[in-house]
């Protein structure tokens, strides 16, 4: 019987990495990133990667680890943000960067998984994003044609998953993970909790197991917070909780 469960990230990556490959990695900022698989890819030493991910982690965490190790040749992202090394490598010409509007990036990945080679969107018309791309009018509005994105390998992070690869995400850690799971020629999922089939509500599965080739329970989750913002408890509430 086919077996999808692997003992750890290193085992799950066995045989699927090669230099020059295209990698999709789920997450938005540091939220919902497959941190165990990223660490194992760093340790594997694979090089020349094209990485499709909304962001590229931060210095010292998430995909930032692969940037630091010089394993990434090109990023396809919507946001560099506060990642200094990313910005610096790009500005110095050491890293190729293809900026995509976030929604276009998400839809290109969905299209890749859904067998749709191209679609039209209003996003980016009249900007550098549309340069060199076909534009076209529908009902008096101008749209740009965007192509699908797929990858040799997709790595995603879910909250819970079962041994058949059915996945459930938690809160805003869902983000790009469900689409990426559909767009990898091979898809690996890491989960915080691996369950037996039947433990997940069948009406509530975000990624059906068909999309997941291998699954593992992550050894540890740091789940680092990028921008901790809080508010003080107000007096009334503080009293209540005493």
């Amino acid at each position, binding site marked *: 019987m086919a077996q999808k469960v692997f003992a750890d990230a290193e085992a799950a990556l066995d045989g699927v990495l090669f230099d020059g490959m295209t990698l999709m990695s789920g997450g938005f900022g540091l939220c919902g990133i497959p941190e165990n698989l990223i660490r194992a890819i760093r340790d594997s030493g694979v090089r020349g990667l094209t990485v499709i991910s909304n962001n590229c982690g931060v210095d010292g965490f998430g995909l930032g680890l692969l940037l630091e190790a010089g394993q990434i040749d090109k990023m396809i992202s919507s946001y560099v943000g506060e990642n200094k090394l990313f910005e610096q490598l790009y500005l110095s010409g050491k890293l190729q960067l293809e900026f995509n509007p976030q929604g276009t990036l998400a839809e290109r990945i969905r299209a890749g998984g859904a067998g749709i080679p191209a679609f039209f969107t209003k*996003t980016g018309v009249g900007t550098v994003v549309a340069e060199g791309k076909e534009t076209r009018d529908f009902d008096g509005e101008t749209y740009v044609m965007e192509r699908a994105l797929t990858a040799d390998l997709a790595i995603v992070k879910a909250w819970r998953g079962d041994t058949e690869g059915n996945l459930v995400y938690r809160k805003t850690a869902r983000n790009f993970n469900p689409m990426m799971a559909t767009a990898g020629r091979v898809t690996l999922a890491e989960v915080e909790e691996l369950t037996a089939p039947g433990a997940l509500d069948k009406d509530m599965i975000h990624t059906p197991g068909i999309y997941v080739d291998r699954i593992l329970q992550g050894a540890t989750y740091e789940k680092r917070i*990028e921008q901790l913002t809080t508010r003080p408890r107000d007096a009334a509430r503080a009293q209540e909780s005493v």
Partner: protein
Amino acid sequence: MAWTRDQMAARAAQELRDGFYVNLGIGIPTLVANHIPAHMTVTLQSENGMLGMGPFPFEGEADPDLINAGKQTITELPDSSYFSSADSFAMIRGGHIALSILGGMQVSQDGDLANWMVPGKMVKGMGGAMDLVAGVRRVVVVMDHVEKSGAPKLLTACTLPLTGKRVVDLVITDLGVFEIDRRGAAGMTLIERAPEVSVAEIQAKTQAQFKIAA
């Protein structure tokens, strides 16, 4: 007297209507949430995949799985829902969000917006801004009237790479409020001024051509 950041946010909040679904950008637009009238139901969308964004968590209660598009920790409300990035931008691109309030670096008199990069200097990326200005039904930009150098930010044409062409409906600066007929030919019109700010001062600090509302 120029408006403060909070006063600009309060003015932007006047664009809200009961029942609106709204996306607020980073910076001053975030402050708009503090000015939603008590009798009004306004639901905030966060483009990383949430509808019904609540306030920041109490100290010690932050959840790393719950952040907004600015990557700040936030909370949920009773009617919140979560969804994927593809579903979030389907919502945005499909015109289901009534209003987007976001920051700007430059706005042209035709409604072009630049707010995502300064070539060779700042490479943050556009994130969801291009999708928001292309998809949301009404786009309001809140920004300082001039740069720190004093250079105007309301221009005949933007010099920075565009976020969108003919996308801005209203600009709120610290000096006044401008309406833009982005779908027509009427151009830009000054419709309000901050207290004690003269038309002459605004004209001096604005490169864009604008009319003055009667």
